[in-house]
């Protein structure tokens, strides 16, 4: 293991936040041989460091400002890494680098590649690609062969080979009979079945949330019922089969209510929400920055005058039909974002997943109808989500919980805590650092984000995966930083 070769790391002086162990205190962290040796009060950790030194090994000390947060490395249950087959958009390596920059140390990659991850051969291929990646990449395998919704994949072999879950993401499992079989068959794998809830008959060729803005812009609507109808079906099937079901990227208030009721009734369901569905609304398609990320940035939104001098081509975000805000499921209403935040607060929604969906420029530089769905989200997730903390909408502890132990538990991944002996996956966050999103600086090949040019508050400073530093934000000269010990 690479972790065994590296110098031990000793993080000193920050705020230790480990929701899995109910820890939130000024504390230190000692990482040795890819494992967490000690986490806790500075004196206790120092004792471990001294003991290590007596055994002949000197830890590299990294002194942190006291407001910096030391947390478990983030776990993303939903990322599209595009490889094999769609390397113009992303590769496993570029996606994993983006993850490291975003503070993620474990990412689960979706199988809608070319070929689809639907048999052991492709799964092993992706695992091989992930070997040299800076963060841990766990593949999700398809539910049905070719994601065609007809025949189940060899789930037992796939699970034994490392498939962490099953999903036909990008496409819904349209046939309820197949979903019932999948939930039943997957029971013996211990792995969850994920559905991307989108009733194709209700959604049709919808490209944005079906509401007044779609009406005004003349765009086909993607109705809320397109999600809730299929989710209701799946929850009923999960109840009847006893299967493990995970609902991907919830976007509407009705879905939160359905999952809440199902959980109350003991259905084995977990659910995720994306940063963009929590923070952005359909108004962003019309270049109006509605919601928490827009209030201070552009008061009253940016409406484009149809007459007179237009902004230069250098500021395309002032135009409506903003393809960077085209995503599936679509950005919804302010009321939906409120319900999703509420669901996250009360635990109805277990975790936050990015649905990182990188695209090449040509797939976004076109008419809204023709543009690809998706947002490149790994590198902006933390900064965007910290808005919820700064606006007093979500406690920091719950945010970290939803990015670490909650997703790890949903898929049964050994990650997400700072307990002794656990994998040395750690992120250090400066909660107050202000930075402006500049997609040209992304490690991801996908520069498709509606947050370009938006100032965020909260930044990943350091990412450690398996005991190794995999990302370090350039230090500012003005800040007092520690020296190597």
């Amino acid at each position: 293991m690479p972790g065994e070769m590296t110098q031990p790391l000793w993080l000193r002086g920050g705020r230790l936040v480990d929701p899995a162990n109910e820890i939130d205190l000024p504390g230190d962290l000692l990482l040795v041989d890819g494992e967490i040796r000690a986490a806790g009060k500075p004196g206790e950790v120092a004792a471990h460091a001294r003991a290590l030194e007596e055994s002949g090994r000197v830890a590299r000390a990294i002194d942190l400002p006291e407001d910096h947060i030391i947390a478990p490395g983030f776990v993303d249950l939903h990322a599209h890494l595009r490889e094999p087959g769609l390397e113009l958009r992303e590769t496993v390596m570029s996606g994993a680098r983006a993850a490291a920059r975003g503070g993620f140390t474990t990412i689960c990659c979706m199988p809608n590649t070319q070929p689809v991850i639907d048999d052991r051969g492709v799964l092993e291929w992706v695992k091989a690609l992930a070997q040299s990646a800076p963060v841990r990449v766990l593949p999700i395998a398809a539910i049905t062969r070719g994601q065609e919704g007809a025949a189940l994949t060899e789930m037992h072999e796939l699970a034994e080979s490392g498939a962490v879950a099953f999903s036909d993401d990008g496409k819904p499992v349209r046939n309820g009979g197949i979903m019932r079989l999948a939930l039943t068959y997957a029971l013996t794998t211990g792995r969850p079945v994920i559905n991307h809830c989108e009733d194709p008959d209700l959604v049709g060729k919808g490209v944005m949330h079906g509401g007044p803005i779609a009406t005004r812009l003349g765009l086909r609507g993607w109705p809320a019922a397109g999600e809730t109808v299929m989710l209701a079906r799946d929850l009923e099937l999960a109840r009847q089969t006893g299967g493990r079901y995970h609902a991907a990227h919830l976007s509407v208030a009705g879905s939160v209510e359905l999952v809440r009721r199902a959980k109350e009734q003991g259905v084995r369901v977990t659910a995720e929400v994306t940063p963009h569905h929590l923070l952005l609304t359909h108004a962003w398609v019309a270049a109006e920055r509605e919601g928490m990320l827009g209030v201070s940035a552009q008061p009253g939104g940016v409406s484009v005058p149809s007459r007179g001098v237009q902004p230069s081509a250098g500021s395309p975000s002032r135009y409506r039909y903003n393809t960077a805000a085209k995503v599936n499921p679509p950005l919804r209403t302010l009321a939906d974002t409120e319900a999703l935040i509420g669901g996250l607060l009360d635990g109805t929604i277990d975790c936050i997943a990015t649905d990182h969906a990188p695209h090449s420029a040509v797939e976004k530089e076109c008419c809204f109808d023709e543009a690809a769905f998706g947002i490149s989200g790994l590198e902006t997730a933390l900064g965007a989500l910290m808005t919820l903390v700064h606006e007093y909408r979500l406690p920091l502890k719950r945010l970290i919980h939803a990015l670490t132990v909650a997703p790890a538990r949903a898929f049964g991944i050994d990650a997400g805590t700072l307990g002794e002996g656990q994998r040395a996956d750690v992120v250090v966050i400066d909660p107050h650092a202000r930075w402006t999103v500049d997609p040209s600086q992304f490690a991801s090949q996908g520069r498709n984000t509606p947050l370009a040019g938006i100032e965020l508050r909260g930044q990943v400073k350091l990412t450690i995966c398996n005991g190794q530093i995999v990302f370090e934000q350039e230090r500012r000269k003005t800040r007092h930083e520690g020296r190597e010990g």
Partner: protein
Amino acid sequence: MSDRRNLLDLEGWSAADITAMLDLAVHLREQHQTNGKLDLLHGQSVITLFYENSTRTRVSFELAAKALGADVANMTATGSSVEKGESLLDTIKTLDAMGPSVIVMRHHASGAAETAAGWCRAAMVNAGDGWHAHPTQALLDALTLREQWGDFAGKRIVIVGDIQHSRVARSNCWSLTALGAEVILCGPPTLLPATFAAAYPDRAVSVEYDLSHALERANAVMVLRLQKERMDGGFLPSLREYRRDYGLTPERLAPYPDLPVLHPGPMNEGIEIDPAIAHGATSRIERQVANGVAVRMAVLAWAAGAVDLPQGQEVTYGKK
């Protein structure tokens, strides 16, 4: 070109803006009738780029540009590199590199003109984008109604038909309400979703599903084309029932013998409008077509920067 002027939609246009544009249209038409070809756009070029079929819009833009003295190049998607898979971005950049003053574009995707405007130096005039907007149609409708009414205050117009898929209806919602009129949208609920009631906040736009009720309050009626492919989408049970409920028939119009009738064309006579109405005494459909040329002269002259539209003042312009 920092003084570039785009006509993407009439959203945001005030009554003064629209009135000035209509005044300019009337004036340019008189000038053209008196003096023949004008030279306002002499030495400038206009490209029309049509991704959808068109008769009246494309031809009237071409005639308008020529009447102003411009050189005109017409391009359609069929027979061009678009068929080889050239993207809109590349097509626009290629045409723009040839230095036209104005690109007039019709495209099947909503927002195409607005998106393309961000990619070119030429002024962009939207000749219809998807379901979204058709601003020159709305201007010629406004000119036709002004000729009829004189003043828009207190006037009501019923727009009846497939509202959901209509760029004409959407643009008219902005322009006619800006001028002071009230718009009543009418059609079957599958083609007139309830979201229309909330789509135009602060505008006098309302939704009415009963055509007879709507007509009781109307000072004019605009009939939209019913595209027969809507039948395939299951929006309607039958054309027969559509005609029964929403067709403009002599029987339905009998109580309102003077009600002016507009239609943006092309018509499905016998479905949304009966021939007796389409070609009857109250039809303003041919007048709409004639006004289309005048309005497009004004739009092109303005977009190319040959004429200014001072707000709230009499239009001043001159030969360059």
